[in-house]
C-alpha cells in the first residue's frame, strides 16, 4: 500500500469564499455524488464531507494524478470556473499531508472556530453514508476511524474545547461561574440585537428557566419573547422586574444610560443580596459603570467580554499546539501501519516477533534450570527455533502466494491481526 495513494481534495473557509462554497456543497445525503466519485477511474475508496465551512472528498486511488483531476472536475461541476481557478480555490493533499489534514479536520484544529465540537459528528455522519454506499474499504475504514480516535485523544488530553471564544458564549461561561447551575435562573433582555439574541439562545441551551424581554416598542418585545417562549414587558416595568431577574442583557440603541446605580441599589436589599449579572452589549453603554461597585453585582460591558475572549483565544492557541503534536505522533503511527501493509515487511516482522518470543522464553527457562550444560542449552535453543519455523512455514507460504487481486490488503491485514503485529508497543505480549 502506497501512502501516496491516500488523497484529500476540497475547499474550505480558508481557500474559497462562501459564494463558491455554497455552490459546491452537497445538500442532503451524499448517495449520488458518492456513487459518481466511486465510478471515477482509479478510485478505490471514497468519502464525502460537506459542511457549511468545507466540502471535501477523501479517496484512495491507484492512479493519484488522474483520479484527482477528475474528482476536482466533479467537485466544481456546479460552478462555471476554469480549471485554473478551481486549482486556486481548492487544496489537494497526497499521502502524509492528507493524513495530517484529515486528523486536523476531525479534531477541529482546521475549523474556523478552533475547538468547536460539531465537526467530529459531521465527519462521523459522512463516514456512515460512505460505508452504507459501500464506498469505503480497508484503508479508509482504518484511516477515518483513526481520525475519530485522534480527535478523541486530543479532546481528552488538551483543553482545546474548554474556553469560550465568542462573546455570547463568554457571557454564558461567566454566568456559570457566578451562578453554578443556571436551570432556575431568569434572564431579562433589554432591547434586541443579534448579539443579545445569540447570548439569550446560548443561555436557553444551558437550560435557563425563564426569559423576559423589555423593549421600547412593546410589539417588538412580544415578537422576540414569543421566539424564546418568554414574556414581554415595557421599559417602565424594568426596575420592578429587577427584583426577580438574575441575568440582564442590555443592547438598546439609547444614547443615555438605561439603568443607574441609584436605581438598582435599593433593589439589592429586596433581592436578599442574590447576585445579579449585568451584561451591557450596547455602544454607547446602557448600564452605569458604577453598578459594578455594588456588592453582588457583576457588570460586564462589551470590552470586558472581548477581553475574556482574547484571553481564552490565547489559552486555546496553546492547547492547539499540543493538538498539533498529537496529530504528528498519530500520523507517524498510521504511516507505520500503512507501510506494514506490504508482504515483505510483514514476513520480516512476524519472524522477528517469533525470535523475540523465543529469546524471552529461553532466558526465563535457563534462569530456572541453572544446571544445564552449554551443550544442553544449544539443543534446547535449536528445538525452540525449529518449532517456531515449522509453525510459521505455512502461514508465510500463504502470504507469499497472494500476489494480485483485490484482497491483497485484506489478507495482509488479517495475517497481521492474527499475529498481533500492529499492537501498540505498550500492550505488547512480550512485556506481559
Amino acid at each position, binding site marked *: 500500500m502506497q501512502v501516496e495513494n491516500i488523497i484529500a481534495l476540497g475547499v474550505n473557509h480558508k481557500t474559497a469564499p462562501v459564494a463558491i462554497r455554497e455552490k459546491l456543497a452537497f445538500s442532503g445525503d451524499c448517495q449520488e455524488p458518492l456513487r459518481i466519485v466511486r465510478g471515477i477511474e482509479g478510485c478505490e475508496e471514497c468519502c464525502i464531507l460537506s459542511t457549511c465551512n468545507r466540502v471535501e472528498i477523501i479517496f484512495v486511488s491507484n492512479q493519484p494524478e488522474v483520479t484527482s483531476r477528475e474528482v476536482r472536475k466533479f467537485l466544481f461541476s456546479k460552478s462555471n470556473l476554469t480549471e485554473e481557478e478551481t486549482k486556486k480555490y481548492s487544496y489537494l493533499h497526497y499521502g502524509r499531508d492528507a493524513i495530517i489534514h484529515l486528523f486536523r479536520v476531525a479534531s477541529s484544529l482546521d475549523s474556523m472556530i478552533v475547538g468547536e465540537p460539531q465537526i467530529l459528528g459531521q465527519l462521523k455522519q459522512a463516514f456512515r453514508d460512505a460505508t452504507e454506499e459501500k464506498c469505503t474499504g480497508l484503508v479508509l475504514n482504518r484511516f477515518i476511524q483513526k481520525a475519530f480516535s485522534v480527535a478523541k485523544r486530543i479532546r481528552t488530553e488538551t483543553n482545546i474545547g474548554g474556553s469560550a471564544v465568542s462573546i455570547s458564549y463568554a457571557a454564558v461561561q461567566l454566568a456559570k*461561574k*457566578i451562578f453554578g447551575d443556571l436551570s432556575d435562573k431568569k434572564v431579562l433582555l433589554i432591547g434586541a440585537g443579534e448579539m443579545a439574541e445569540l447570548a439569550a439562545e446560548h443561555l436557553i441551551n444551558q437550560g435557563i428557566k425563564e426569559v423576559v424581554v423589555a423593549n421600547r416598542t412593546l410589539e417588538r418585545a412580544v415578537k422576540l419573547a414569543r421566539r424564546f417562549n418568554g414574556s414581554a414587558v415595557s421599559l417602565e416595568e424594568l426596575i420592578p422586574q429587577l427584583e426577580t431577574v438574575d441575568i440582564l442583557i442590555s443592547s438598546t440603541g439609547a444614547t443615555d444610560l438605561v439603568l443607574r446605580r441609584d436605581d438598582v441599589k435599593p433593589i439589592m436589599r429586596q433581592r*436578599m443580596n442574590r*447576585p445579579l449579572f449585568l451584561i451591557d452589549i450596547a455602544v454607547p453603554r446602557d448600564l452605569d459603570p458604577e453598578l459594578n461597585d455594588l*456588592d453582588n453585582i457583576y457588570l460586564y460591558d462589551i470590552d470586558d467580554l472581548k477581553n475574556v475572549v482574547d484571553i481564552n483565544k490565547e489559552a486555546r492557541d496553546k492547547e492547539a499546539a499540543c493538538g498539533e503534536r498529537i496529530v504528528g505522533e498519530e500520523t507517524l503511527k498510521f504511516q507505520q501501519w500503512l507501510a506494514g501493509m506490504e508482504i515483505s515487511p510483514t514476513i520480516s516482522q512476524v519472524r522477528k516477533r517469533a525470535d523475540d518470543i523465543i529469546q524471552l522464553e529461553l532466558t526465563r527457562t535457563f534462569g530456572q534450570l541453572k544446571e544445564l550444560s552449554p551443550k544442553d542449552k544449544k539443543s534446547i535453543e535449536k528445538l525452540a527455533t525449529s518449532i517456531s519455523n515449522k509453525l510459521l512455514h505455512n502461514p508465510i507460504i500463504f502470504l507469499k502466494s497472494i500476489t494480485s487481486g483485490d484482497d491483497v490488503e485484506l489478507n495482509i491485514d488479517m495475517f497481521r491481526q492474527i499475529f498481533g503485529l500492529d499492537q501498540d508497543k505498550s500492550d505488547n505480549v512480550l512485556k506481559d
Partner: protein
Amino acid sequence: MTLLFQLTFLIYCFATLTYLLYFYNQKKQMRQLARYVLGAAALSHLVYTVARYFAVGHTPITSNHEAVSFFALSVTLGFLSFRWRYKVKNFGVFVAPIINILMAVAIISSQDVRDLPPALQSLWLPVHASIAVMANAFLALAFSGGVMYLLQEREIKNKRFGLFYSRLPSLEALDSLNQHCLSVGFPLMTLGIITGSVWAKQAWGSYWQWDPKETWSLITWFIYAAILHLRFTAGWRRRRAAIMAIIGFSSALFTLWGVNFLLEGLHSYAG
C-alpha cells in the same frame, strides 16, 4: 510514638505538596495521588491518636499538642467525608495547607504526657473536648471556603482572570459550601458548650464561671449565630457570609490559643 507523629506530619506535607502541584498543573492523576496521600496521612494519624490514648490512659485532647493534633485530624476527616457528598473543585488545595499548619503547631508543642487533674477525670472529657474540636474543624472548612470565595469573586469582579478563575468552582457552589459547613459546625459548637457547661457543674459545682475560655467561646458562638441568623433573614450570603466565616474562625482560633497564652483561667491547665 514521636516518630509515628513525625511520619504522619511528613505524609501531610507530601499531601499538601501534591495538592499544590495539582493546583498548578490540574492533572487528574495528580489529584488522585493527592487524595491517596491525604488518606494515608489520615490513617497514620488515626493510628497515632489511638496509640496515644493507650499511652496516656485518657482521651488525648488535654494538652495543646493533643488538642491541635486532634483538630488537624478532624479537619482531615471532615474534608474527606465532605468530598463524598459535595463536589467542590480544588477544595483540597486550600484545606491541605491548613491541616499542615495545624500539624506544624502540634509538632512544635510539648508532647510530654502530663497527669490529668482529678477535675478532668470524667467521661465528659472525651465527649466535650472532641465535640468542641470537631466543631472547630468544620469552622475551618467554612473558613477555607470563604477564602476561596473571596479569591474567586475578586477575579470576576475586577475582570482580571488569573490563577483562580478557571480553577475554582462557581461562586454559588462556594457559598453553599459555606452554608453546609456552618450547618454542621454550629450545632456541634452549641453541643460543645452545653456539654462543657454540664461537666463544669459536676466538676466545679457551677454551670458557668466566666473564665476567659468560656467567655470567648460564647463570643464565638454569638458570631456564628449572627452569621446564620443574618443569612436567613437579611440575605447575608456570599461575600458577606465569606467574610464573616473568616472573622468567626479567627475568633474560634483565639478561643483555642489566644486565651491559653494571653489570659489565665480554669481551662489554662488544659492547654
